[in-house]
């Protein structure tokens, strides 16, 4: 009963916020008219959108399989990339504002004068984000299944309806505020899980009960190179995922971005440390026999910890935290995936379509994308982490290279942008099928993509400096 009540309150808050924040213009719907004045909202929403149910369930459970190297590398890289992302953020905000860019492909198009590159990137985003969405919908549906005792398909349906409402009514402002609340629930849930494991393991004594093979940094369970690669490719998303960058675009001024850069890395550090540690801490609380089933299916491990260690009612908060993690990511991704189709691709083909028409399409197509990916989630592979890590890694890598060089290097050209995209995408896909499995495909993508970007930029005529808008050094 308490679970149902919690869910009703949760959904009521979401619906009320969406109606209060309903949007009538395209600019309001996609970048909140660049008027968000609260750094905490942007910082925490960024964190919530980044961490999905895959982090809450998969990331929490993966420590069981990969042991200490996962905890150390995943946490370290998340904090490092979060710090770098927010050091770059004011510059990204300034560039988006000076180019009046409302989507990431549009920002890069204007930086490089490359409509072709914009459509190519939009296409990559559309395909890869849909793969990612399917994985998160699957996780989300399982959580509703656990929370409400309904079937998987019914769980999917609940997730679809909630996200579709707040996406279509409120656009980015609703996504930001709801993600802000979801982010607080997520960090709270992660801290509760961490604390309850430590408490049940006898405080810091817990470490003495964890087997040496689990705390070994040499990767006795999974080769450490694989773990480093997975951690790298997931956390790279913090630097360049369009669903996160769009939140930076929405800030009213540089001061807001600056202070969001305090809230976000702190939230990411706390959440990452707590959630990624769960897998190894569990070895200090549960016996090997109790943990054995979750080695095969780590995604159901976090709900198991919650139900076995927390009093009734509190375990529902953990499930709600995981649902929040899923929905905040889904909503932000649906927005950028839809605009890649409507504002980027359709606008390229039919430039004469007015903004209000694009807005209607962005609402309708978004709901369609939600429905299609949920339909495809009816039957997907068991483990979430590898699937997600590759799809988000591809997008992050494709955006990261032209964004970083676009911000700090004037010599990058349209040819460099397009070649970088093609080389990144092709090398990741090829390495995934034919390369050495110890080296993560996204790491190969970063190197090959950067080389192609630099080579093609230097081989072509420098861009006309009159067309370049200076974004200034941190100004």
């Amino acid at each position, binding site marked *: 009963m308490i679970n149902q009540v919690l869910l009703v309150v949760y959904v009521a808050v979401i619906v009320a916020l969406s109606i209060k924040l309903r949007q009538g213009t395209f600019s309001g719907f996609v970048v909140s008219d660049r008027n968000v004045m609260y750094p905490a909202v942007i910082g925490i929403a960024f964190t919530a959108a980044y961490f999905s149910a895959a982090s809450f369930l998969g990331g929490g459970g993966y420590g069981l399989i990969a042991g200490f190297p996962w*905890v150390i590398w995943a946490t*370290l890289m998340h904090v*490092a990339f979060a*710090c770098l992302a927010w050091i770059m953020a004011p510059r990204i905000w300034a560039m988006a504002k000076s180019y009046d860019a409302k989507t990431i492909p549009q920002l890069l198009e204007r930086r490089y004068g490359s409509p072709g590159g914009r459509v190519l990137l939009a296409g990559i985003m559309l395909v890869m984000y849909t793969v990612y969405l399917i994985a998160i919908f699957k996780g989300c549906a399982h959580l509703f299944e656990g929370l409400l005792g309904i079937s998987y398909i019914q769980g999917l349906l609940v997730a679809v309806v909630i996200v579709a409402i707040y996406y279509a009514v409120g656009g980015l402002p609703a996504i930001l505020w709801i993600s802000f609340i979801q982010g607080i629930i997520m960090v709270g849930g992660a801290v509760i899980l961490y604390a309850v494991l430590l408490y049940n393991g006898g405080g810091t004594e817990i470490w003495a009960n964890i087997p040496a093979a689990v705390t070994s*940094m040499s990767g006795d369970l999974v080769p450490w190179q694989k773990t480093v690669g997975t951690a790298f490719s997931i956390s790279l998303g913090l630097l360049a995922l369009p669903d996160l960058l769009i939140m930076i675009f929405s800030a009213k001024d540089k001061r807001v971005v600056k202070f969001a850069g305090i809230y976000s*890395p702190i939230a990411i*550090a706390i959440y990452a440390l707590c959630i990624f540690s769960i897998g190894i801490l569990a070895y200090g609380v549960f016996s090997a026999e109790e943990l054995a089933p979750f080695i095969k299916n780590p995604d159901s491990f976090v709900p198991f910890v919650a139900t076995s260690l927390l009093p009734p009612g509190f375990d529902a908060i953990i499930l709600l935290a995981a649902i929040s993690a899923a929905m905040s990511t889904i909503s932000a991704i649906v927005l950028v995936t839809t605009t890649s189709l409507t504002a980027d691709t359709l606008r390229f083909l039919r430039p004469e379509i007015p903004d209000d028409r694009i807005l209607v399409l962005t609402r309708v197509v978004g709901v369609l994308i939600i429905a299609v990916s949920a339909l495809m989630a009816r039957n997907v592979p068991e483990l979430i982490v590898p699937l997600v890590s590759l799809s988000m890694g591809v997008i992050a890598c494709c955006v990261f290279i032209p964004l970083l060089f676009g911000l700090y290097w004037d010599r990058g050209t349209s040819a460099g942008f397009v070649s970088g995209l093609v080389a990144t995408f092709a090398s990741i896909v090829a390495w995934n099928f034919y390369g050495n499995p110890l080296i993560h495909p996204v790491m190969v993508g970063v190197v090959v993509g950067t080389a192609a970007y630099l080579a093609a930029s230097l081989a072509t005529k420098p861009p006309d400096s009159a067309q370049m808008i200076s974004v200034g050094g941190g100004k």
Partner: protein
Amino acid sequence: MFLAPTPYLALLASMILMLAITFFVILRRSDD
């Protein structure tokens, strides 16, 4: 008392260091 394995303590220390450096860089920038 057994605190935590060395890599975990090193992780905590490096997290705090990274956050401190980031806040220092972010906050000493001018707003304009």
